[in-house]
């Protein structure tokens, strides 16, 4: 997303802040941000205003040799841009938001528990607690540093998109979808949900006008748990069946493929049939490599792959989903070398194709185009759009994750001494050894 103009990031569009938010205005700017509220500018010239701003923001003014003010972004200021980086002081100073501040300290948004757990395991440690400081510091510096403070959801855009007030510093109870949620969750969720990939439609729930919170009713401020190994473990995470509970026997396809007791076959996740191609990531974006365009480095691409739910720690805890959509995630063996950690010893113990929840659901997708009304197909040919058989075998095969696909990708994955390690890491997710005979009538 394009950053706001510098002035717009801090502009309050009112005669006074009290008009915007009387409760927080009563607290006063300097109570949270520090600095000096009343300063004197010698005149209205730009230089004098700059000197006054330096007094208010408490930074040192630098001058040219002929005495002109140098306007530059100060490296050290006496004010705090985002007071909610210290929520216990600034959001709960007088007990205002005690419970939320307390929970947020251990929340998934604040701590990224799933990512930490996975880094620990790939680095060869049982838990994040056991990891050396080198990894913790690198993570804090590069991964946690821009992660959701109170203010980055309720007052401004997040730091990852260079900040900027949402609405004249009004504290918004509900974060803004575009400026907050998908400002961070943009590459995958945002692009999928808004239908930004060529050939895709927006998610049907988006077309119906549902915002993130229609489905995401889990407590986003956390629940006090600190032992999460995956975001999918969070209690109350959305399930399709929360709304679509009566769909199991809607049609023949559901009767065959619905996960769970009574299914006629091993279960599919809903997204196997109802999602469109989605964002995948290759290699790693740590070390400052972020959309660098370097073909040897981090890149994003659109793909759709059905793989096996391995049941490993990184996968969805929902039972009976044997076949799921899988996404290539951005982690490589030497991805943290910039942190001083040259290699993830246990990297290949977990797949880099992981269970995914594409946010681009449609009732009808290429997988559901079974053309029952086409006289060329009979009812018994309902598998035509997905199974690896018949006249569309080749096209249908491209929807699955095969060992041959892993083999074709291995040379693009950087940081491996032995490229076959990539294939070994993902072998269990590939479908070759387990695709059912009903789907594969060679």
């Amino acid at each position, binding site marked *: *997303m*394009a*950053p706001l*103009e*510098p*002035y717009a990031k*801090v*502009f*309050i*569009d*009112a*005669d*006074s*802040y009290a008009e915007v938010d009387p409760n927080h205005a009563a607290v006063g*700017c*300097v109570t949270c*941000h520090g*600095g000096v*509220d*009343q*300063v*004197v*500018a*010698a*005149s*209205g*010239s*730009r230089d004098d*205003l*700059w000197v*006054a*701003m330096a007094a*208010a923001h408490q930074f040192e003014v630098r001058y040219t040799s002929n005495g002109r003010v140098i*306007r*530059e*972004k100060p490296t050290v200021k006496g004010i705090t841009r985002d007071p909610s980086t210290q929520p216990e002081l600034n959001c709960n100073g007088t007990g205002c938001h005690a419970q939320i501040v307390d929970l947020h300290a251990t929340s998934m948004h604040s701590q990224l528990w799933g990512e930490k757990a996975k880094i620990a395991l790939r680095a060869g440690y049982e838990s994040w607690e056991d990891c050396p400081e080198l990894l913790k510091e690198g993570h804090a510096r590069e991964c946690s540093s821009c992660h959701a403070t109170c203010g980055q959801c309720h007052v401004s855009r*997040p730091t*990852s*998109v*260079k900040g900027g007030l949402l609405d004249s*510093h009004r504290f918004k109870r509900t974060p803004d979808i575009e400026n907050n949620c*998908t*400002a*961070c*969750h*943009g*590459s*995958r*969720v*945002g*692009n999928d949900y808004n239908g930004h990939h060529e050939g895709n439609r927006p998610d049907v729930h988006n077309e119906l006008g549902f915002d993130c919170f229609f489905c995401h009713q889990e407590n986003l401020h956390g629940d006090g748990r600190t032992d999460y190994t995956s975001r999918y473990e969070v209690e109350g995470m959305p399930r399709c069946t929360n709304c679509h509970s009566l769909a199991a026997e809607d049609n023949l396809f559901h009767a065959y493929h619905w996960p769970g007791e009574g299914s006629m076959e091993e279960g599919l996740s809903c997204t196997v049939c109802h999602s469109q191609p989605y964002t995948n990531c290759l290699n790693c*974006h740590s070390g400052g490599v*972020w*959309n660098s365009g370097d073909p040897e480095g981090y890149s994003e691409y659109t793909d759709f792959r059905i793989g096996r739910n391995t049941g490993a720690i990184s996968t969805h805890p929902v039972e009976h989903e044997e076949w799921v959509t899988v996404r290539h995630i951005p982690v490589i063996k030497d991805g943290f070398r910039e942190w001083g950690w040259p290699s993830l010893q246990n990297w290949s113990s977990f797949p880099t194709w992981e269970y995914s929840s594409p946010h681009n659901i449609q009732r009808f997708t290429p997988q559901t185009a079974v053309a029952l009304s086409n006289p060329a197909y009979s009812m018994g040919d309902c598998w035509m759009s997905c199974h690896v058989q018949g006249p569309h075998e080749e096209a249908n095969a491209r929807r699955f994750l095969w060992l041959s696909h892993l083999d074709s990708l291995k040379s693009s994955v950087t940081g491996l001494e032995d490229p076959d390690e990539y294939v070994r890491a993902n072998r269990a997710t590939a479908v070759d050894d387990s695709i059912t005979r009903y789907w594969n009538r060679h």
Partner: protein
Amino acid sequence: MTTSAFSQAWWRLLLWGSLFAALQQGCERIDPITADPASSGDAVTLSCESCHTNRDYLRLLAVEEAASESAGGG
């Protein structure tokens, strides 16, 4: 060229030069906060609010950052 003609040309050059210099100086002083009392040259007391609710002040003081786009990571 006669002495009189030379003198006239000299005065024209001086007049236009002075006018140009005055304009340049004036523009720097009044732009873009002409309407604000602070531009009068008198000292002015400023609060956080008086700057952050004043689009012209903020534009005047803003330091450009390197523009870049991000789609966010998750």
